[in-house]
């Protein structure tokens, strides 16, 4: 046994490595990024694990599925919204099933610390009919990931490990095994019907998946991660990390009956025993009211009273914490120190001093002054901070790649000027297809690709489409070379850059302006 200090993310990564991981794939996204980065550091040292950032989550998922097809163990990492991008591959991988162990580590972001929604990936696991682990602490991150591989191979299906921000980015000591499992040998899948989802095959495969469900329930019922402790008449169902928030507020000899859930599908028998034992039950979930809704059903339970996010004991949205759970449990507030009643001026994140995006936005803002109240479509990355004062240069941010396609749609609807601002990595992720469509549709759009040569927001990971690669892609997609412009966003070029923007704004038809200067954080880090 060893002991290591690990983030929840890192504990998942180490669990995978110790389970005999062959390949890890992913796309950076807070709060999931550190899973990949931790394994990548080990891979670099060991040389026998493949670690690759992919252009997007769908590609990453399919690459992991390919490793699984080859009989070896794969990990694929992403943030919750990344799973939307990978959903096609994800849903169908449940139908083909896994050959080598296939684990999806997805990090949800309740409270939206760094995200545009707080969707709960447990629904995706249920949707795809696969098991899901939800760790309550760093040790469970490590243990569950190792168990997830065994379960994946035993049942022949992918398994999800669902993290939340607070566990992903919290650090503690983790006990590790002394003898990591060796990697699987290369043993490609031979069953063509299973992997070729023509309707006739898919119907068979889907039935097989459905027929595995009683076994999934049995496993969940017997899981050491689903722990029922019957005491008094007040009950708690605590999913994942929320168990800690409940226990934090209770003395050791409390009289609450608690069902801790760490492995899905929800174990019906354990749930029934709890509900029959108690008069009322509080459901704690760091995410959507997934179990609460299930328990309540359409017409209520008829037995115990169910409370939670749907009844106002807990807030319907946002991250849970020990204070909210305490209030939900009806316990009195804890006394605090008395101090002056003050509020601190808020300090939102900002673009770094010297950031190239600032110079791009200043030039774009000035170029757009000829229009009345121009609205600029944008995308997901550091440059989204351009929406805040003092720049206030962009006016939308929806999903990866939406800037280009929404600008095209607005242009087609008659809006002018239809300007999109997108980063180099976001362009590689989901912008290329949108640009190809816009060119094919001859949409009157001006697309600004802010190429800072890296995935900056998540910690300067390599970008798949930067510099010459980016230029070749844009030209290859069919943009008129006369309306493909490259500028260098530095203060001394301001007037020239404004002129370039103006020229392209006057052009009828698609144009691409690449604003290229390296991220200063990247320069600092990779010096």
């Amino acid at each position, binding site marked *: 046994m060893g002991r290591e200090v690990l983030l929840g993310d890192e504990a998942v990564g180490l669990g995978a490595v110790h389970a005999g991981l062959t390949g890890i794939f992913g796309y950076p996204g807070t709060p999931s990024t550190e899973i990949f980065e931790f394994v990548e550091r080990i891979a670099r040292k060991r040389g026998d694990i493949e670690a690759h950032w992919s252009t997007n989550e769908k590609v990453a998922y399919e690459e992991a599925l390919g490793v699984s097809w080859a009989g070896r163990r794969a990990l694929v990492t992403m943030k919750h919204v990344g799973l939307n991008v990978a959903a096609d591959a994800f849903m169908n991988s449940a139908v083909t099933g896994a050959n080598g162990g296939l684990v999806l580590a997805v990090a949800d972001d309740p409270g939206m610390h760094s995200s545009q929604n707080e969707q709960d990936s447990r629904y995706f696991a249920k949707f795809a009919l696969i098991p899901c682990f939800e760790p309550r602490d760093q040790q469970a991150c490590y243990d569950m990931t190792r168990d997830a591989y065994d379960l994946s191979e035993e049942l022949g299906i992918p398994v999800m490990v669902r993290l939340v921000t607070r566990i992903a980015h919290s650090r503690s000591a983790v006990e590790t095994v002394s003898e990591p499992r060796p990697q699987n040998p290369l043993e490609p899948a031979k069953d063509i019907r299973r992997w070729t989802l023509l309707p006739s095959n898919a119907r068979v495969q889907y039935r097989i998946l459905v027929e595995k469900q009683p076994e999934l329930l049995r496993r969940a019922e017997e899981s050491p991660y689903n722990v029922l402790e019957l005491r008094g008449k007040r009950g708690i169902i605590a999913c994942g990390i929320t168990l800690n928030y409940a226990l934090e507020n209770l003395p050791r000899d409390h009289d609450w009956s608690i069902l801790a859930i760490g492995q899905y599908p929800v174990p019906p028998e354990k749930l029934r025993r709890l509900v029959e034992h108690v008069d009322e039950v509080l459901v704690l979930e760091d995410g959507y009211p997934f179990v609460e809704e299930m328990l309540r059903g359409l017409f209520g339970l008829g037995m115990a009273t169910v409370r939670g996010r749907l009844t106002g004991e807990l807030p319907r949205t946002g991250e849970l914490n020990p204070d909210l759970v305490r209030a939900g449990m009806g316990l009195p507030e804890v006394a605090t120190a008395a*101090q002056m009643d003050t509020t601190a*001026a808020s300090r939102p994140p900002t673009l770094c001093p010297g950031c190239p995006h600032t110079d791009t936005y200043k030039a774009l803002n000035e170029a757009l002054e000829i229009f009345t109240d121009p609205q600029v479509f944008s995308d997901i990355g550091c440059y989204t901070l351009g929406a805040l004062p003092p720049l206030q240069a962009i006016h939308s941010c929806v999903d990866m790649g939406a800037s280009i396609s929404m600008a095209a749609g607005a242009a087609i609807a008659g809006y002018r000027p239809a300007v999109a601002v997108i980063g180099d990595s976001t362009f590689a992720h989901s912008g290329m297809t949108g640009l190809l469509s816009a060119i094919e549709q001859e949409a009157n759009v001006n697309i600004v690709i802010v190429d800072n040569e890296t995935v900056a927001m998540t910690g300067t990971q390599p970008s798949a489409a930067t510099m010459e690669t980016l230029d070749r892609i844009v030209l290859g997609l069919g943009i008129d070379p006369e309306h493909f412009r490259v500028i260098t966003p530095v203060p001394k070029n301001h007037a020239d850059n404004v002129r370039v923007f103006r020229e392209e704004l006057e052009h009828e038809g698609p144009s691409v302006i690449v604003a290229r200067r390296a991220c200063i954080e990247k320069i600092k880090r990779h010096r």
Partner: protein
Amino acid sequence: MEKNLILAGVGGQGILSIAFVIDNAALDAGYQFKQAEVHGMSQRGGAVQSHLRYADHPIHSDLIPTGRVDMVLSVEPLEVLRYWKTLSPEGWVVSSITPYINIPDYPDMDELLTQLVSFPSVVLVDAGKIAQAAGNLRAQNMATLGAASPLLDFDDEQLLKYVRVLFGAKGEKIVAVNEKAYRYGKAAGQFFRGLIEAGIAPLDAVWLTRRMDPATIDPAQAGRWARLASDKDALAAILEAGSDLDAARVGVPG
């Protein structure tokens, strides 16, 4: 034993470096610990915090419940106000008074200091000045850690061991600067508390601690300085002469 800290500052100020040092010292001392941190968007110049808990028993929550925070340890004075409502009645504020001004509505500094000293259990040091004296402005985090260290459960060596580990890869000079910042910060914090305990008005204690040379500030002399502080003219004369009490040869009762 259980200690719950909120480490606070602005993205880029090195909150996680403070956490690294305390985490590892706690682990060495045989404590359990949990430490929740902020990654991602907020790190870009926004307000950041880390909840750090260590105890001689298992810790459940990664987040500290309101009312159970033992210390807000902040590298930036405004950031204290964001978290101090979570302090337990016995809780402490340890903060640098060097402002990080990257917002248009940063409060008036005198007003901010008045608010901070209204809290009785407070340690305030000028981490910017201390770090500069130690040789690098970036060492403000270690200066603030030094100021907080007497209220933690480790001796200097237990903490400094991990200051060295943390900065080891950056070379001997950076290690020495950070170690120095820690020691200067500790001395400044003790001097400040010495003044307060000797009855000097808190704002005067801030002012006087700030006037001292971080390299030679002597907590053992805090009592003598405090008694002197009642005579503003004599105090000014000594500070003028180089803040050496003995050299100034004033009749301060030892």
